[in-house]
């Protein structure tokens, strides 16, 4: 069928092709050959060759599809020789192609048998496939059968399972009944034999039976009375045993019979009396703890004053109490866990905590009595109330040094409390983790733990200790810093005085001590207090000293008046000015070195806290950082103070001296002839004198100021010199040579000041240098070399109108020419 369809397609194709006017000759040839090829193909495939007759006209038709126009164009356009040559050529090609086609056809004929073999082979397979299909269907039905039957079997197994569980239950009941019988018989005997362990074991077995199951069994059974009797016997025995055990335990406690105590302690849980057992036993332990604690406290009270540990004896007593309690918990926890099961430590600790609370109360009471805490605290509060009033000095002050030891003891006591609380928390949390599986119950128990600790006297005492500590520490810090400031001494050859080192030593000591309390709140508060002391007490002293000002040797009118007043009162001494000068400079240096101390303090504290409280959570860290940021605020205060000191120096030491020096510039003529110029340069020029004066001024400060302060001072001075210089220049008039000299002088001044510092003062000189450059012009229009938007142009610090007024200072520049300048 296929080749017939191809033929039809071909015919359609031929018709369309004929309608084209120009068609390539070779294409046509190819078409013919294709037709031929198909013909051959079909001949090969079909044994019936009569179809060739259909093909033959097709071929001819294809040949003639070469359009007639083609031939006609040939006839007209080309001469016959060419036509002939071409025809021959085409003929030749056709022949070659024909041969090729014949070859292809032959090869296809050869393949024919091969393909036929293949088809034959395939047809053999068909019956086999049918067989396979049948077999597969059989298999499917078999599998279905199997699944059905297996379903049936599993149903039966299920039935069997329920039956078995019934049997199991039955067995259990029977066992229970047998045990019940045995227990009820055994328990009485055991009680009579005083074998409480055995009796308790019987009761335990009885209690472990499912009571509701027992009741059901009783209902199911005929011999009800017998069983009920056993149950009653056992219940009675249990009650009896409970009473006996409780009694015997108390007896053992009274007799201090440790073996019996432990024996009955173990029996309690067998009788289902877990809580009672823990309560009885821990109450016993409480008395033990109480006795030791009492003994310790007594010996603490009676400790002679001369004893080495006298100053921390109460901290020691507290430590002994905590250690004793910790030991009790540690040694009895395994016992508790073995006989009572895990998860019951909290009940034990709650009871022990009561003793801890009452003991700690007594210790603190004795401590507070012996150390006169209330009196000292009262004194401090009175002092702070009075500090503003006049009667301040009358109140007896306690020496901060005496408090030092006491503060140390409180720190230690607080730290012990903190440590013990952490110990208890850790122990119970671990116990709860192991012993209580139920999530809700676990949470409840942990909450109970928190509440127990929070509401304990221990916690309250701890908070009170911290409160005492903070009050005393604050007082200590304030008083010690005040002392350091009062006893301020300047060692010769030092730039700073003793108060800087002393104050920061005290602050560091206090903060360090607060770290050793183990309380983050304590640390934060001490840091807050340190900030307050530094800003209010320390910085204000520095500032007050700077406010006195730096008395200059060259007095202006008002200063002269003050001097006069002082001398009238006979207070002026030669050293007086010198002393207050030194005080000013030292205060300035102190402020400078304090900024460094503050930074170091901040870093050190952070590091120390990191090591001592490694497990801070995010919130705690935030709290701490916020408090620490207060310390860096102190540094800002100090910077402001230094700035203020610099301004003070400027107004008294810099301005009054520099201004007359710079003003001498106006005494010189700046309209020079050549002769005058060489005379000026040979003599002592303005700038030489100025530099010499500056040198003396600077060298007097270089020795005494700290290097930061000196740099700062130099900047202040430079600003002043340049501003003043600019002013006097604007008041002078120059000719060409005068401008030349000025330019040189400005350069050498800038060179001198730059050589004295690490800071770049070039910037401060920019305006002055530019003014000098302008005055040094040969011609007005030289400005165009510098002004504008090109590579060589400079960044001007002068406005166009300023430039014009500077140009006007040159007497030889015409003012209308300057006016005409476009800038």
């Amino acid at each position, binding site marked *: 069928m296929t080749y017939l369809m191809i033929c039809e397609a071909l015919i359609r194709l031929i018709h369309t092709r004929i309608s084209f006017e120009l068609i390539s000759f070779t294409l046509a040839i190819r078409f013919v050959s294709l037709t031929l090829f198909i013909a051959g193909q079909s001949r090969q495939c079909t044994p019936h060759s009569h179809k060739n007759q259909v093909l033959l006209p097709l071929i001819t038709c294809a040949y003639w599809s070469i359009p007639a126009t083609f031939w006609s164009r040939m006839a007209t356009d080309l001469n016959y020789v060419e036509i002939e040559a071409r025809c021959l050529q085409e003929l030749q090609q056709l022949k070659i192609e024909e041969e090729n086609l014949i070859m292809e056809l032959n090869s296809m004929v050869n393949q024919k048998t091969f393909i036929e073999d293949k088809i034959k082979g395939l047809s053999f397979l068909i019956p086999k496939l049918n067989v396979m299909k049948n077999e597969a269907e059989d298999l499917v039905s078999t599998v279905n059968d199997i699944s059905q039957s297996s379903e049936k079997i599993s149903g039966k197994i299920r039935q069997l399972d329920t039956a078995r569980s019934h049997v199991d239950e039955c067995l259990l009941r029977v066992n229970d009944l047998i045990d019940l019988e045995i227990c009820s018989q055994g328990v009485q005997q055991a009680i009579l034999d005083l074998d409480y362990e055995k009796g308790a074991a019987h009761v335990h077995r009885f209690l472990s039976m499912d009571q509701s199951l027992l009741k059901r069994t009783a209902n199911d059974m005929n011999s009800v009375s017998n069983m009920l009797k056993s149950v009653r016997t056992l219940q009675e025995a249990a009650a009896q045993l409970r009473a006996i055990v409780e009694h015997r335990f108390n007896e053992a406690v009274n007799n201090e019979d440790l073996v019996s105590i432990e024996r009955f302690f173990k029996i309690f849980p067998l009788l289902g009396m877990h809580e009672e057992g823990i309560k009885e036993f821990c109450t016993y332990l409480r008395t033990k703890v109480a006795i030791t604690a009492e003994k310790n406290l007594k010996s603490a009270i009676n400790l002679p004053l001369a004893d080495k540990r006298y100053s921390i004896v109460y901290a020691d007593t507290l430590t002994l109490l905590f250690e004793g309690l910790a030991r009790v918990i540690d040694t009895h926890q395994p016992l508790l866990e073995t006989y009572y099961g895990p998860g019951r430590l909290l009940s034990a600790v709650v009871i022990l905590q009561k003793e801890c609370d009452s003991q700690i109360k007594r210790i603190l009471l004795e401590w507070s009595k012996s150390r006169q805490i209330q009196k000292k605290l009262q004194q401090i509060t009175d002092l702070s109330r009075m500090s503003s009033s006049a009667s301040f000095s009358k109140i007896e002050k306690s020496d901060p040094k005496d408090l030092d030891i006491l503060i140390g003891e409180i720190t230690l006591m607080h730290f012990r409390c903190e440590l013990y609380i952490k110990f208890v928390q850790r122990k119970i949390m671990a116990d709860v983790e192991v012993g209580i599986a139920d999530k809700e119950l676990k949470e409840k128990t942990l909450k109970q733990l928190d509440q127990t600790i929070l509401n304990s006297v221990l916690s309250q005492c701890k908070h009170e200790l911290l409160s005492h500590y*903070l009050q005393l520490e604050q007082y200590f810090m304030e008083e010690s810093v005040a002392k350091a400031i009062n006893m301020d001494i300047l060692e010769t050859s030092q730039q700073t005085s003793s108060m800087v080192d002393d104050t920061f030593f005290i602050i560091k000591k206090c903060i360090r001590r607060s770290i050793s309390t183990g309380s983050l709140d304590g640390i934060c508060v001490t840091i807050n207090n340190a900030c*307050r002391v530094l800003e209010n007490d320390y910085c204000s002293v520095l500032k007050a000293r700077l406010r006195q000002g730096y008395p200059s040797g060259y007095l*202006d009118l008002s200063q002269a008046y003050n001097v006069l007043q002082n001398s009238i009162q006979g207070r002026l001494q030669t050293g007086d000015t010198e002393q207050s000068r030194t005080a000013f400079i030292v205060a300035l240096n102190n402020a400078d070195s304090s900024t460094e101390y503050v930074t170091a303090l901040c870093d050190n504290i952070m590091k120390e806290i990191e090591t001592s409280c490694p497990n801070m959570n995010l919130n705690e860290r935030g709290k701490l950082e916020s408090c620490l940021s207060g310390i860096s605020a102190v540094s800002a205060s100090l910077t402001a103070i230094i700035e*203020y000191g610099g301004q003070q120096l400027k*107004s008294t030491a810099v301005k009054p001296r520099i201004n007359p020096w710079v003003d001498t510039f106006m005494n010189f003529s700046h309209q020079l002839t050549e002769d005058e110029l060489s005379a000026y340069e040979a003599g002592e020029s303005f700038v030489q004198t100025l530099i010499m004066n500056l040198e003396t001024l600077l060298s007097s400060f270089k020795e005494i100021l700290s290097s930061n302060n000196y740099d700062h001072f130099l900047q202040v001075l430079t600003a002043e010199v340049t501003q003043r210089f600019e002013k006097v220049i604007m008041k002078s008039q120059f000719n060409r040579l005068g401008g030349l000299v000025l330019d040189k002088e400005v350069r050498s001044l800038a060179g001198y000041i730059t050589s004295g510092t690490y800071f770049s003062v070039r910037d401060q000189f920019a305006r002055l240098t530019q003014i000098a450059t302008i005055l040094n012009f040969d011609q007005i229009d030289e400005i165009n070399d510098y002004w504008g938007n090109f590579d060589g142009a400079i960044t001007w610090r002068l406005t166009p109108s300023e430039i014009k007024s500077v140009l006007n200072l040159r007497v030889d520049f015409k003012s209308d020419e300057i006016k005409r300048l476009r800038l």
Partner: protein
Amino acid sequence: MDDYKFLFKVVLVGNAGVGKTCLVRRFTQGLFPPGQGATIGVDFMIKTVEVGNEKVKLQIWDTAGQERFRSITQSYYRSAHALILVYDISCQPTFDCLPDWLREIEEYASSKVLRVLVGNKIDREDREIPTHVGEEFAERHNMYFLETSAKESDNVERLFMQIAEDLMKQARMTNVPRYDSNSQNINDSSGQESSCCNRLT
């Protein structure tokens, strides 16, 4: 995270049990946790709010009301930008203590601190302090006044937002709010210097 422009410290004070922690929790977490224990020392929470397209970080210090923590809480007054003094409208003693609190604030806090009086627990039926009494007290002592309910979330947001806005206004007026005593002095001295300069020239 730290793209805030202003940071203000707000400290809450007042007697134990007036609801300071609840106010803070309500504002920072939107919670009202009933039956929680007394605060120990100070708690610290942060909330960033937006005031006029500016981010403002509020650092809220929730202090313990109990007497034995006084030496801890007092140390936070100094650096506070705003102090919220809270009393319980259903409990006269908490109101009676206000003068004591003010004395403490006077002693420890900066004179420029923004002070706000808050009567909390207005959801309660058994009111003991009428609104006008609180109002008068606040007016007498130059404080803002607001009544709130942390439980019903009444006025809580408003309280803190008002504080944030006021503090921002204050901060905008004086560029460096904390050190302006210093800067003022420096300005004074520079004023002198310019006059001295005039004299010479």
